[in-house]
């Protein structure tokens, strides 16, 4: 067993974990953060995507001990104070959700994209979610949702600049 300290959605978590436990198992089974899904367990579908120090990773392929001393963000941290994030609201508005099983991973991949690129092109959006499989939506609405979130975030930034805030 290994002692780890991980910041998860802003909270400091300390735990003793087996060396073989994946980050996904740690999040789901230990912390009961079941919003992160397992779609394949071998890094091929993206359903388990979370952010590690701001970068999207497939948590089924990472060990919990690798997250020691680092910061993890999951879908549960996306809405703040009960308010949907701009990305979440865009997914609702654009009709980007069907069965919803891929949705948390999609949103985390998109969040990771925005953290490194505030104004992604359509091609960059597609590239960012190319590793997230969805069987229901045909992706069009998901791409539209991320585009919508981009535009809303940029409009809010522009307004903030104008308002001097």
């Amino acid at each position, binding site marked *: 067993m290994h002692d780890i300290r991980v910041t998860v959605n802003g909270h400091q978590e300390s735990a003793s974990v087996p060396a073989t436990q994946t980050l996904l198992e740690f999040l789901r089974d230990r912390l009961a953060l079941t*919003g992160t899904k397992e779609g394949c367990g071998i890094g091929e579908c993206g359903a388990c995507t979370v952010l590690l120090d701001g970068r999207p990773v497939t948590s089924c392929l990472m060990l919990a001990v690798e997250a020691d001393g680092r910061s993890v963000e999951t879908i549960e941290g996306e809405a703040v104070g009960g308010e949907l994030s701009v990305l979440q609201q865009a997914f*609702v508005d654009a*009709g980007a959700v069907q069965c919803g099983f891929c*949705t948390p991973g999609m949103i985390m991949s998109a969040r990771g994209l925005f953290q490194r690129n505030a104004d992604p092109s359509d091609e960059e959006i597609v590239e960012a979610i190319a590793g997230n499989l969805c069987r229901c939506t045909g992706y069009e609405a998901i791409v539209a949702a991320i585009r919508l979130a981009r535009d809303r975030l940029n409009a809010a930034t522009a307004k903030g600049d104008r308002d001097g805030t």
Partner: protein
Amino acid sequence: MARELTYVGKPVARDDAVDKVTGAAQYTHDLGLPGMLHAALVLSPHASARIASIDARDAEALPGVRAVVTGKQLPYRLGLYMQDKRILAEDTVRYQGEAVVAVVADTLETARAACRTIDVTYEPLPSVLDPREAMEDSAHRVHPDLHTYDHMEGVFFPKPHTNIAHHQKIRKGSFEEAIAAADVRWTGSFDNPPVQHVPMETHATIAQALPQRRMELWTSSQSPYTVRHLMSVCFGIPHASIRVHVPYVGGGFGGKAGLGLEPLAYVLSDAVGGRPVKVVATREEEFNMLPSRQGLHSTVEIGANRDGKIVALKATYVWDAGAYADYGVNIGRAAAYSGAGPYCIDNCWIDSYVVYTNKVYGTAYRGFGHLEVLWGIERAMDQMARALGMDPVAFRSRNLLKPGDTTITGEPFTPGHGNPQQCLDVVAEAIDWGSPPDSPDDAHRVRGKGLAMLHKAPAMPTFTSCSAVIKLDEDGAADILISGVDYGQGTYTVLRQVAAEELRIPLEKVHITWECDTAFSPYDWQTVASRFAYMGGNAVIEAAQDCLRQIRSVAARALDVSPDAIVCEDGAAFPEGQPERAIPYEQLSLGYTFANGNSIGGPVIGHGRYIATGLTHLDPETGQGLPAQYWTYGAHAVEIEVDTQTGEIEILNLVTAIDAGKVLNPKLCDGQIVGGVIQGLGSALWEGFVFDENGRFLNPAFVDYKIPTAKDIPRRTQRILLENPQPGGPYGARGVAEHPMISIPSAIGNALYDALGIEFTTLPLDYERILRRIRERTDAS
């Protein structure tokens, strides 16, 4: 004059979206119970073998292992239409991937570790992998005891002592005479490989065996009542002793329509004294243990006159059922009565054989049977048109079903069926049919256009039914209880719109219970076949009307007028023309109280139901009869660009028209159509199981089995929804869920011929297959 609709037909956002974007939505994968144990499985490495011995001593000795269960302990046979399956293989394994041993342990890791210690000795048996070979007299019999199996009598006809689980015949007119007299004849063969549904949530079930042979199940299923019924039949337990919960479901597409892991999870819980046991399929098990779409080999023969009229059509469909055909037999049946496409064929002869082989077994998959048979029919239509020197649109138009025609089962085609011709016309116009594609910039790239028709009716028993309950709350809001499952289609949102429309209350005041629970949710057959919005919609309309009857009755007494004089509007009841006397629903929903305290009425609970009407079994010899509650027609047109150096296809534009009857929610309808189209693209371009000569499944993972990704979406897609109303449909609607994926491969295959002049008959149309044919032609010239 009809009242303008307030909620129906509006692009309402889905009910469940917020739960799903926040991670709050709980799927079976996410659930746990106190004391719950976990199971893992040992799968057969052989396609056909006798199980000589199973040595599980090491597994049983492993700390944390609670039970090891084998097929010998489970004398049950199960299945929906054909009871041909075991929970675990008993004496023989019939496909590579079949479950042989199950281990229950405290943790999944322990269960898996225990499985690795189990030593199963197999004696390989002869096998049969090709369904056509399986039809030969000398073929290995996958089920030597087929003649003893229970099945739905009068509907399915297994042939004793063969590998044929069902033979569906369609006989109309006189094919032999008509084909002999035809001016032009065309014959060809087509192949579809088996494919996987790929729900993002793999199958998962938690079962708890309770005292007195009762059980409770939480399961990722499309059909809670069918699960309950089949469990009842399998284990000889009364229905009321079985409680099935279905929480959020992460996709189904037909793969979760029948029985999945439920019987296994139950016997495992029973084996550990009733502790709950969770069984979750790995992605590999989803591919190679759980059912897929059946493969198909089809042969199509068409005769037509010089004027373009088809005078005769014969089709032979040989379905690769795999090792079990419990659901597959119904696909062979449905595909036969749809098996000539949406055309008027007076002389038709179809044989549809569902044939056992030693491969992973088949089940329903979105539009079952139709994508497969129309891969042949719609390619054949283009070929026949060419043989006649006719334009494919003109040729189809000459033969499409029109009012006054009859289908191949003798059903009269009426205006209420919708308008296939209009579907064809609008996609042809949208793709600018008749003008050649623009020339690509690169010399090694070529373009082509193609189109294809589609049709499907719900394939379901003649007695299929559905029911709904609506309860009114203290605040006059409504709660819908129904047990069809919304596993992503959006039907629950649509049912809320329907209830709000009928009850005359704001949409925000209509709620639907997301967890289906057979203890509380009223009966529905199965959530399959694009029939939930239709049947559930009708049941909800009737339930709402029942509520309104109760409201009017109480309001009439409160207002001292006749119930007939009461109208309901804006969440209140009042005598017609006197809205100032309105009593809001919240003063009626639990009963009405007069000023002096006297009370009347009581809680308003409405119920509604719907049952398929007028359907008949098909005549076993001719296939004549009425199998369809309604038909949905559509068409796709596509423009593609092919890279002749790589074989890569790019979809430039893909236009889909569907005659929806009435679009109940344009936003959800559009989303469902795009999703279906892209799933169809998967079947067209990438997806297909690959087996080696020993029946070993070579590509049970996403690295080797490609489904469409975000990078694969067409440059442009378009939807055109027609609204020629369906008599009997809720607000005139008919089902559209499965249809978008049907005939996508056909349209692309036709476009590929247009681009390259090469006839492809086998799916998928992957780069390698295309490039090989291009090179063969180059080498030959």
